[in-house]
């Protein structure tokens, strides 16, 4: 694109000073800026300081401009640029459909002020489109990029090198292929969100049923039936285990202190921190 810009900057002198068309307001069609009143086409190129940009209100007979004429005009204008294209068949090839995807083809197309007079001009445009879509296909349309849940960017277990990797020889645990879920019940109007003035106790949540009554999780009552157990016998993952046979491992906060100390029903000093699980 930078090369094309460079090429374009050199052809920008074709516009008369102060008369660069502005399509936001109104711009004349290109045919109105190529002819001089004397109908001497070559004058346009040989005398570039003259009025290249002339408003001619009469329609030009574009059929008079053959592709061969165009090429000869370009050569006259800048012999060095076009000298490599003296093989006329190559020139024709540049504008053929086989030129799709050729960046240089696009660049020359921009340079040619007659590109839209030529019956081949559509090929020039087609090239641009072909190039764009071709690139897109490679970059964006890989059907395996985002449709295969186990696709891993081709890095094996490495998703982002140096950051994440699975343990060698392990298979992705199925539990790691899950949507990021949020607690949607925290949205919507809340029945209370007023701050408490007295200091609150330690944060506790206890199991409750739909009637907001405490439910012993060991009993299959209410809506807190025991969840399906998962076999952990050979699990070596680093997690705590909680022994309850004699002394609870961490009975640091008891429900009684919770309900007593932070009941909002009594003095209103603190809202209950044991939410009803209605609907869940």
């Amino acid at each position, binding site marked *: 694109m930078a090369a094309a810009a460079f090429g374009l900057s050199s052809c920008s002198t074709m516009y008369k000073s*102060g008369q660069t068309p502005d399509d936001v307001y109104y711009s004349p069609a*290109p045919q109105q800026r190529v002819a001089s009143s004397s109908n001497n086409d070559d004058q346009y190129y040989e005398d570039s300081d003259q009025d290249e940009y002339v408003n001619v209100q009469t329609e030009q007979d574009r059929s008079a401009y053959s592709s061969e004429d165009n090429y000869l005009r370009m050569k006259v204008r800048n012999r060095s640029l076009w000298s490599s294209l003296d093989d006329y068949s190559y020139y024709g090839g540049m504008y053929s459909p086989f030129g799709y995807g050729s960046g240089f083809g696009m660049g020359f197309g921009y340079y040619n002020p007659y590109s839209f007079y030529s019956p081949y001009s559509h090929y020039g445009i087609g090239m*641009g489109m072909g190039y764009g879509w071709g690139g897109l296909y490679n970059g964006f349309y890989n059907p395996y990029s*985002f449709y295969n849940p186990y696709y891993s960017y081709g890095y094996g*277990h490495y998703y982002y090198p140096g950051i994440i990797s699975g343990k060698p020889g392990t298979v*992705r645990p199925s*539990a790691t292929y899950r949507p990021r879920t949020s607690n949607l019940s925290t949205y919507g109007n809340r029945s*209370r969100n007023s701050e*408490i003035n007295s200091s609150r106790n330690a944060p*506790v949540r206890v199991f409750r049923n739909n009637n907001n009554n405490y439910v012993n999780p060991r009993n299959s009552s209410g809506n807190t039936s025991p969840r399906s157990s998962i076999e952990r016998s050979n699990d070596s993952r680093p997690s705590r285990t909680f022994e309850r046979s004699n002394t609870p491992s961490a009975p640091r906060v008891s429900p009684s202190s919770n309900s007593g100390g932070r009941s909002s029903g009594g003095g209103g000093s603190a809202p209950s921190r044991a939410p009803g699980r209605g609907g869940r």
Partner: protein
Amino acid sequence: MRKVFITTGLVFSISILFAQEPLDAVRYSWLTPQGTARAQSIGGAVNALGGDITALYTNPAGLGLYKTSELVLTPGFTFGNNKATYRGSMATDNKSSFNYGPMGVVWGIPSYKASSKWKNVSIGLALSKTANFNNNLYVSGQNNQSSYSEKYLDQLIGGNATNPDDAALDYPYGASLGLNTYLLDPTYDGNNNLTGYASNASVATGLKQQQIVTAKGGVSEFSIGVGGNYNDVFYIGGSININTLKYVRNSSFRETDATSDANNDFNYFVADDYLRTDGTGASINLGIIFKPVEALRVGLNFHSPSWYSFKDTYYSSLTTDTEGYAGVKSQSSLDLNDGYSGEYTYRYKTPIRLGAGLAYIFGTQADVSSQKGFITADVEYVSYKNNAFNTQDNTNQADKDYFTDLNNTIDDVFKSAVNFRLGGELKFETVMVRAGFGYYGNPYSNNYFGNQPGDVTNASRMNISGGLGWRNKGMFVDLAYVHQIIKDAYYPYRLDEGVFNAAKLSNTIGNLLLTLGFKF
């Protein structure tokens, strides 16, 4: 009345803090339009104006006004300043990044038949950044009402985690980390029956809460479009857009004991979360422009949803210091998942946008010296309720149910908004002076804020812009500065019950854009 959308009663056993949440939808849809420096400096109000490559991204009928051809390059630079007020405390952060507007080509192709009413057809293609997620946010405040760790408790109770041993493994992105680092403990009654769970965070004596969120990424949009000109009166156009999205977010939430007591079994915890979302999407834009008189243009446009396929990658870690209780403990979700991050692919759809515009041109002759300027205005309607997520794999009923609940929540907490844009240009033959304004309405309904909306309900984005242009010798150079003022709200965490607070955000973003163009 609090609304709870649970279609099946199913509660996920895996749940994390950076969840698929309604806020994701706002991030991807509450966007201000990007464009060339010229379009940006007039507030982005180019719906009815046309003649600028930005038409690909707004009203493609504007391509039909091109009778000449041009190549456009638009590099840019963005610098943002964020101010977050959370529980009475204010914290600031900033972020700078490179940016770019449309880079592309428009070909104006005149009709071959002089007698044809279709005067010309124009084709454009461009690549542009249409969203910039680069941002740093710092939130800080004192809290004696709730702890971030109560999210973990909600997870455990909501997940009916009646076996603490299982719970220490089943919530690798949240509660399990809390249990294994001794931030959380199970609670028992006198008969050693499990009653619930408790956090050791010392809310009673106060907590200092801090969060740093670093976000990167954006949306790059490749667009190819065509516009036709019927008799210099009626213009019609369409474009096809391919979007690539990347969003990378690192969050670190720290909660520290506000006292100097070294014997209360809590010093601090730090919860780190990483999320990367990659996506590709496609959309179409359609539009018409009508000129009832030569100087007046009326534009209408339609933006289809962008249909995306997203892939998330995420992991979390937690470090807790419970002083004399268990000391400093640290664990990552990778430890609990054999080194694997969480991963998921799903679909997302942005809302439809409908727009209308008016433009009045002072000087519509081909002679540039007679072109004196223009004024232009747009209005746009978008319903953020119509954001929608869906599963990629329709066979997983549990996932489908979650996305149904998520979409219902989006419908409840977002609303429709009307956006306005206004701009103008004065042209002095080769030099142009421009100014513009844009206002983008509040996407949140009051339900987003619960019953204590306070002063954060009026979220908005306002763009004030200005610019200069020079056009001569077949080239044009445009410079724009857009000053964006954003009012928004951010919840560091949300809880089932009790007090949780929004941080009120007052952000400013400066955008500097340069457009280089070449006519050919």
